[in-house]
């Protein structure tokens, strides 16, 4: 990961929540609105401390709930501020109404989802169900693997969101428990270098609450019989274009980050030991660390297995994904959440859709694990690798496998 340690950067040991707060501080955010919720709460406490200590000169608004969190940030963003919040699970659910409006208004907010399994059954532990449940709302979603990636991605998220070809809100997702509270070595980049990287703030050039630029923001487009529906379609298509444009912007921004800070992260999908792989496993988020270890062990035994990690999940990097898996005979997808409509994992569902663009049909299987904070260990991934190897041999996918069912 860290090839070059830049002179002005600093090494600390912190968890993912603190790393996100450091990123917000380094990104010169103007307005933070928050409501605490497990496992995000300490992130908010770090931010409050940074602001109280004068490290970050932002306004922090402790509102009465998540619906107001995002409404406050809409106003701030329309007035030209760089904005940030973090939430998860039930908080994200309560935020849903303004959450739906944010991408349509093309507001480049950045929000961390410290992922948590959704109720019910009652759970305050990690799982991707909250973030996955909002995958079709129109926010860009990136999932992090490590504490360092949380910090780096949160800073990069501003550059991606505020790019004029994108102008969309970005969710940086990091796993509740495993990344939120797991401490690791983390390199803090220099404030000045982050400023140079991000450039001037310019978030309300297209829509503004500004007396010097009078306009009505988000008026009714009108119904059938008039130009309303075609106007609506124009904006919807614009939103889809912004999403598609973001794929290239995410790639460029990650490349620039690597050049400036000496740390590279795969922007869309990461191919790990895919050279000559006969079959592969697909992962997302912090589980990838244990999965890579399992792949290393299998490779040491002579197994021809590789791994593809999805970082950018929305928009789905169809081309990069299909290219990464083009030469395998089978793949197994491990999800930390459930698609109730398809009796499998949502990433699995996206994977087989993406592979539809591949010239050959590749058998695939869905594995679900790590729900409600369950640990996904190397031995779980050994099972995934073993089952996927069988699939490569017989080409007959079985029903979804629940990995932690008998732990």
């Amino acid at each position, binding site marked *: 990961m860290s090839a070059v340690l830049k002179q002005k950067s600093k090494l600390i040991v912190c968890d993912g929540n603190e790393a996100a707060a450091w990123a917000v501080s380094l990104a010169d955010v103007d307005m933070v609105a928050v409501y605490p919720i497990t496992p995000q709460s300490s992130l908010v406490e770090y931010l409050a401390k940074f602001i109280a200590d004068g490290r970050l000169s932002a306004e922090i608004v402790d509102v009465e709930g998540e619906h107001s969190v995002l409404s406050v940030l809409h106003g701030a963003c329309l007035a030209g501020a760089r904005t940030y919040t973090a939430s998860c699970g039930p908080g994200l659910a309560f935020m849903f109404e303004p959450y739906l409006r944010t991408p349509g208004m093309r507001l480049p907010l950045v929000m961390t989802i410290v992922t948590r399994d959704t109720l019910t059954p009652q759970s305050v532990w990690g799982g991707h169900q909250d973030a996955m449940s909002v995958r079709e709302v129109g926010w860009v979603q990136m999932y992090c693997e490590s504490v360092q990636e949380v910090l780096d991605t949160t800073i990069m998220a501003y550059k991606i969101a505020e790019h004029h070809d994108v102008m969309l809100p970005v969710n940086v997702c990091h796993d509740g428990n495993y990344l939120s509270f797991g401490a690791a070595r983390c390199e803090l980049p220099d404030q000045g270098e982050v400023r140079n990287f991000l450039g001037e703030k310019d978030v309300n050039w297209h829509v503004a609450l500004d007396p*010097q630029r009078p306009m009505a923001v*988000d008026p009714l487009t009108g119904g059938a019989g008039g130009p309303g529906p075609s106007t609506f379609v124009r904006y919807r298509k614009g939103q889809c274009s912004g999403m598609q444009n973001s794929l290239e912007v995410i790639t460029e921004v990650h490349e620039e980050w690597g050049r400036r800070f000496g740390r590279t992260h795969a922007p869309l999908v990461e191919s790990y030991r895919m050279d000559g792989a006969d079959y592969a496993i697909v992962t997302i988020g912090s589980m990838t660390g244990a999965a890579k270890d399992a792949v290393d062990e299998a490779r040491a035994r002579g197994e021809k297995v590789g791994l593809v990690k999805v970082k950018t999940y929305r928009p789905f990097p169809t081309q990069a994904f299909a290219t990464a898996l083009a030469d395998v005979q089978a793949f197994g997808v491990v999800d930390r959440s459930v698609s109730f409509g398809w009796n499998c994992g949502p990433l699995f569902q996206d994977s087989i859709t993406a592979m539809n663009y591949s010239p050959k049909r590749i058998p695939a299987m869905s594995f679900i694990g790590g729900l409600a904070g369950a640990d996904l260990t190397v031995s779980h991934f050994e099972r995934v690798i073993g089952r996927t190897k069988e699939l490569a041999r017989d080409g007959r996918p079985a029903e979804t496998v629940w990995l932690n069912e008998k732990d």
Partner: protein
Amino acid sequence: MSMTQRAYPMFDSSTIPDDLCPIATKPTPMLPGDWRSMRPVVDRAKCVKCAVCWLYCPVQCVVERPAWFDFNLKTCKGCGICATECPQRAIAMIEEAA
């Protein structure tokens, strides 16, 4: 300042792509009086010019006359707050002619 004058010209929306956030930069010529369904009528005998209606009117359409208060019916939207708040019960809301 009249109703159509403004401190800054409306934003020129042709300077930005037309598929980002929907915005409107052409003011409609319609005023609330064009769509109001109820209008306030003052009973001059009851009005004591206490100015409570003037204070509460959300669109500030209450106009002072020599011995009573009246309303600018171009901008009155007929909300009836003045009638509710009037301590003398001097304001009645009547239906606009169809």
